[in-house]
C-alpha cells in the first residue's frame, strides 16, 4: 500500500465518512426491500384488497396503483441517494482527501 492510501485509511474522518455513507446505503436498501416485500404480501395475503378500487376514488385497483407507486418509489430513492452521495458525501470526501 502506498503512503497516501495508508494516510487516508488512518484518517478518522475518512472512516466516519465511509461509515455514514454505508449506513445511508443500507437504510435505503432495507427500505426498498420493505416496500417490495409489502407489495408482495398484499398480492398474496390480501388479494381481495389488491383488487379493490383505490381509495374508492377510481376503478383502478390498489394492486395497479400501488404497483405504479413502487415503480415511482424506485426512481425516487435512486434520486435521493444520487443527490446526497454526489453532493454532501463527495464534498466531504474531497475535503478529507485534500488533508
Amino acid at each position, binding site marked *: 500500500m502506498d503512503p497516501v492510501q495508508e494516510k487516508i485509511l488512518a484518517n478518522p474522518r*475518512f472512516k466516519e465518512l465511509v461509515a455514514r455513507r454505508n449506513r445511508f446505503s443500507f437504510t435505503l436498501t432495507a427500505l426498498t426491500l420493505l416496500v417490495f416485500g409489502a407489495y408482495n404480501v398484499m398480492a398474496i395475503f390480501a388479494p381481495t384488497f389488491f383488487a379493490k378500487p383505490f381509495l374508492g376514488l377510481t*376503478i383502478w385497483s390498489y*394492486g395497479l396503483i400501488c404497483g405504479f407507486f413502487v415503480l415511482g418509489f*424506485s*426512481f425516487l430513492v435512486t434520486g435521493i441517494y444520487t443527490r446526497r452521495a454526489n453532493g454532501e458525501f463527495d464534498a466531504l470526501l474531497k475535503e478529507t482527501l485534500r488533508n
Partner: protein
Amino acid sequence: MKRILTSAALILAAAPVFAAGEAIQGEVQKAATNWTAIGMFMFFVIATLGLTAWAATRTKSTSDFYTAGGGITGFQNGLAIAGDYMSAAAFLGLSGMVFAKGVDGIVYTVGFTVGWPIILFMIAERLRNLGKFTFADISSFRLEQTRIRTLSAFGALTVVVFYLIAQMVGAGKLIQLLFGLDYGYAVLLVGVLMVLYVTFGGMLATTWVQIVKAVLLLSGATILVLLGLAHFGFSPENVMNAALENHAKGTEILFPTKLVTDPISGISLALALMFGPAGLPHILMRFFTVPDAKEARKSVFFATGFISYFFVLTVTIGLLAITLVGKNPEFLGADGAVIGGGNMAAIHLAKAVGGNLFLGFISAVAFATILAVVSGLALSGASAVAHDLYASVIKKGKASDKSEMAVSRIATLVLGVLAIVLGLAFENQNIAFMVGLAFGLAASVNFPVLALSIFWKGTTTRGAFIGGLLGLIVSVALVVLGPAVWVDVLGHEKPIFPWSQYALFSMSASFFGIWFFSITDKSKRAEIDKAGYDAQFVRSETGLGAAGAVSH
C-alpha cells in the same frame, strides 16, 4: 418461526419470472411481407451504420473500443442501460401478459425494477472506482490474475453465448412474424449488423445504437398509449371499465394468479432476478463508460426512471389492447384467439390505433431493440476474450494496444459467426432455459466472486476460484437435470431436479465455496490476497487512482 419462514417464502414466491427471451419461441406463422415495416427498419439500419462510421473515426485505442473512452455522460449511459433492459421480449411479453392475465403483469414489472436501486446503493460506484474495462478487473483486483481472470472470462463468455442464442432465435421468430422474412435471413442479418457495429464502432457505436433505440422505443410506446387513450376520451376510468367489461375473465383480471406455487422455486427466481443483472457482463461494462463515480450514480438514477416509465406504458398498452385488440375481429383467428399469439398484443394495438404506417414503425422498433441488445453482448464477449484472456492472462499485461484491438475485433467476428450458426441450429429447439441459465450463471458465478472480493477481506484466490467454479458446475448440472433440459429437450418423463429455478442452490454453493476454501487457505498467495484489501478498499470508496476519461 415456521410461520415466518413460510410467509417469507411466499413473499419471494410472488417475485416475477423472467419473461425476457422466453416470450418468443416455438412454432410461429410467417406473416405476409410487410414493406412499410421493412422500409422503416432499413432507415434505422442506414442511420445506425452512419453512426458507426462516425464512431469508427473516434475508436483508436482499446479504451475507446471497450468504454468509448469513458466519455459517456450519466444521462446517456442511463438511456443505454435502460435500453439493455427494455428488450423486445420485455416489451411484447409483458404487455401480452397484461392482455392475457391482467395484474400479474404489473407484479412482474415491479420485480424487474426493484433490483436497480439495490445495484446503485451497493455496487455501482465501487464498480466504477475499481474497474477499467471488464468486471474481471474488479474480481482480480487483489487476487491472482491468471486463475480469477480466466474464471471470470469464462463466466462472462458462457453468459454471453447463452444470452446470444436466446436473442438470435427470438429475433428470427419475431422477424418472421413482423416482416414476413425467412428465419435464416433474419438470423444472418442480425449477426452481420452486430459484427459491423461492434468491430468498427466499438463501445461508442454500441452505446449510441442503444440510445437511439431506447428513445425510439420510449417515444413509440408513448405515442401508442396516447393514441389508445384517445379512443377512450383520455379517461383512465373508461379504459378500465372497458377492460373489465371486455375481458373474458372479467373482474378476475384484477386478482393476482398463483404465479409461482412452489416456495423453493420462488426464492430462486427472486435471487436470480435481483442479483442476475449485477453479474451480467454487458450491463456491468456500461459502468466503465462514464468518467467517474458521480456519473455512474446518475446513470442508475436515469436508467431506473426510464425503466419505470417504460413499464407503466407497457402495462397500460396491455390494458388498452384488451378492448381495442381483443374485441376487434380483424386481429382474431377462427378460434377466437389473437393472431400470432399473445405476444402480439402491442403490435396489433399499433395497427388498431395508428394504421399500417404506425404498425411498421413499432415493428421496426421491436427489431432495432434486438439488434442493440446483441451488439452489447458481443462487445462484452469480445472484451472478455481480448482484455481478460489475451492481454491479461496470456500476455501477462504486456500486450500492445494494437494487438489487443486486433484480437478483440477477431473475437467479435468469431462470436458473430458462432451466434449465426447456433441461431440456425437452435431454430426449432426449446430454448426457454437459456435466458434462465444466463441469469442463473450471472448470479451464481460472476456476482458472488465480485461481491465477496469487494466486501469481504478474507476472500482468497483459492476460495474465489473454487467457489465460482462450484457455482458454475451446480448451475449447469441443475439445468441439465431440471425440467427444461431433462424433460423438454432430452424427452425423459420426470426431471431428476424438480425445479426449473435453481439460483438458491447454485448461489449458496458458490458463496459457501468461496467462504470455506478461503478460510481454510493457508497458502502464501492467501497472505498477499488479504494484504491487498486495504488498498482496494481505499480506492473503491474514493476512486483515487481509478481509470479516468480520455478526452478527444
